[in-house]
């Protein structure tokens, strides 16, 4: 079958450079995904006009939608390129970098902001050490199951990309980090530090900046109940606010 698929790539040579579109024709084959199309361009960097060009620059790693590296905007929706199957996409296929982060080159972006947010909210269990301290706390199986769901966040940035309140102009840390706080404050050890954890999302850039657009939950590739997390943390913050007010 000689069918070719048109791929439109929004390219950019560097952080300040002007973006431009370049189109490619990729030979169709079964199970083709966006990653395999970009790999084809590496092996034969020629655009649809037949001109030699450079391979498209992008980040990817696991190719099974669990590392979060290959997030980009495909046909207008932020998602992972590895699980974007050509058979299921309307053509031509358009790919763009996530726009809420610094663009390094082409589709390759700098998402340090997302990891900095995890630092800011202390997204970890404060263990005493890695010494042998015996078994961990017992946990209800049903609770472990929903915490597992929240714990699948791969910091890909799709939620932030879709969020109208997440931008260069705002300090909002985004849905992912807030959902992580919900995860940690519900762990038996995290529960010992509930107040501090909630405090971490009550200041500038915290939960109050959520505009409740509910976009995040619709684009999360892991189907994490982000809006439930946001609502929950909003309530926790309110409780904490009252509590702080009453106790001086």
């Amino acid at each position, binding site marked *: 079958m000689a069918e070719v698929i048109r791929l439109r790539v929004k390219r950019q*040579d*560097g952080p300040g450079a002007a973006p431009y579109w370049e189109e490619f024709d990729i030979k169709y084959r079964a*199970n*083709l*995904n966006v*990653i*395999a199309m970009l*790999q084809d361009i*590496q*092996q*034969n*960097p020629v655009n649809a006009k037949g001109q030699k060009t*450079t*391979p498209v*620059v992008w980040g*990817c*790693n*696991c*190719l*099974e*939608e*669990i*590392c*979060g*590296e290959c997030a980009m905007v495909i046909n207008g929706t932020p998602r992972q390129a*590895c699980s974007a*199957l050509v*058979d299921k996409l309307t053509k031509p296929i358009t790919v763009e970098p996530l726009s809420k982060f610094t663009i*390094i*080159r082409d589709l*390759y972006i700098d998402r340090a902001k997302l*990891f900095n947010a*995890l630092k800011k909210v*202390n*997204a*970890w*269990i*404060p*263990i005493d*050490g*890695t010494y*042998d*301290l*015996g*078994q*961990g706390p*017992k*946990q*209800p*199986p049903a609770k*472990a199951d929903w*915490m*597992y769901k929240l*714990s*699948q966040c*791969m910091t890909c940035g799709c939620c932030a990309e879709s969020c109208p309140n997440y931008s260069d102009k705002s300090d909002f840390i985004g849905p992912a980090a807030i959902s992580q706080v919900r995860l*940690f404050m519900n*762990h038996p*050890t*995290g529960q010992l530090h509930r107040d501090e954890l909630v405090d971490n999302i009550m200041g500038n850039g915290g939960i109050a900046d959520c505009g409740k657009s509910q976009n995040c939950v619709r684009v999360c590739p892991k189907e994490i109940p982000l809006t439930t997390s946001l609502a929950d943390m909003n309530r926790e913050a309110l409780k904490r606010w009252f509590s702080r007010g009453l106790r001086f």
Partner: protein
Amino acid sequence: MEPRYIVVGGGLAGLMATIKICEAGGSVDLFSLVAVKRSHSVCAQGGINGAVNTKGEGDSTWEHFDDSVYGGDFLANQTPVKEMCEAAPGIIFLMDRMGVPFSRTPEGLLDFRRFGGTKHHRTAFSGATTGQQLIYACDEQVRRWEVAGKVRKYEGWDVISAVLDKEGICRGIVAQNLVTMEIKVFRGDAVNLATGGPGMIYGRSTQSVICTGSIAGQVYQQGAYLGNPEMIQVHPTAIPGADKLRLMSESARGEGGRVWTYRDGKPWYFLEDMFPAYGNLVPRDIATRAIYQVCYDMKLGVDGQPVVYLDLTHIDAATLDRKLGGILEIYEKFIGDDPRKVPMKIFPAVHYSMGGLWVDFDAMTNIPGLFASGEADYQYHGANRLGANSLLSAIYGGMVSGPAMMQYAQGLKKSCADIPQSVFDAELKRQQNATEKLYNMRGNENPYLLHKELGEWMSEHCTIVRYNKNIQKLEEHIQVLMERYQKLGLPDTGRYANQSVIFARNLWNMLEYGRAIAVGALNRNESRGSHYKPEFPERDDENFLKTTKAKWTPNGPALEWEEVDVQYIKPRPRRYDVDKEASK
């Protein structure tokens, strides 16, 4: 002056080594190609082994040890394997305390499932994304140390080489920034390569794209030995794909999945038939060879294709979702069929390297100051790794190598700060020149196409069934590829975020490492674990109960052989059609 510690690689082994060093008061420069949270450890699915014995089966760390040594066909040194198995229950408890959402029993305790090569429920798990959950817990602890000022992360750096002083001691590394392309030298008293496996040498495998084995291949050229490079695990159940062969976890069989194909118009559960004692839970090398035999020798692949069924449809959907959700989603997303309703089509794929950098029992390579841990080393799995032992060996490897680095560095007479600047400048200059040479190559060979060809040759001639004449041809062809490499033309000559130049450099190291795999395989004239030669179908302890040590020379790998530590369990025939004999 305080010693400087460099950890290369932010998967489980590297992160655990980092945590151990920080906890003991040291500070770490941590290098990774990607944000460490995105390391290949995320791809491990089924679980982590530890003989916690919560199911009344009389499991013990000795039994875990024996299963691992027997599963590895007696090629692993027994002392480190024994110590790893003894540490395993504590490691699982630690990870639980770190917040890993392990699946639970009704009583709220950790649940364990079965895995290949054992009769015990010994595998703790988080759904079917256990590797992801374990590395997230370690990533979080390392972030905590980062905030505390003890870890400096260099994410988005490709480590190019080790700096060796004139006595041959490792004193640091040279690395290149993937964005600015700046090449810099970093001093370190102890350097730990926790850089994962070399799956990319096979082109498509279950491994991530950063798993090139490049830095292992580089330090091999600088004098480090590779141990058992020929021991490459081919996982029986993967989903063939255009860009990757995606893993379908062994936990699918651990939870009752059955492998079959049609014979005479009726389903034939060939693993259950061939191996009544272990059935679908035979170790990976055994299952892989059986699938290969059914598809190629018996021509019984489904629809004449090289695929067989992995069937979960007899298990209720709610149980599947809870215990295997992550992998079912992968199959659904990438293939489009619902494995709760139709059997999955699978075929074996290159998955894991038991071999790797040779290290002593303190995780140090033969280059003083240069350590290795995780899949990058060769230490724990012999000729075949048991499922769910890799997450264990990665974490345990970090627990050994981190403290070992500190002990080594604290005993040094001269620190890296005392080494003349000229030593560092020389290696920096050497790497800058080599990179400059790459930039200026104007031939017509595309590095990505050359890599594709290497992968096809390696996959065809050095995987499940190995014939000497084919391995010979492969080794010769790798040399042809090395010649063609001299005529590379980079598709991108830009000086900013140029991925082609990084890839081209890694490709050379893949060629060197691939050649060591081929030569190691060629010279091991026996069948042991994952290494199977029809011309030599039996294990030959008299001649080959030995570790292959490959040393780089300009004329190709030179092999040496080292006795294996078998002080605890006497080698015995390895069979899975009948129950294993007791070892104690």
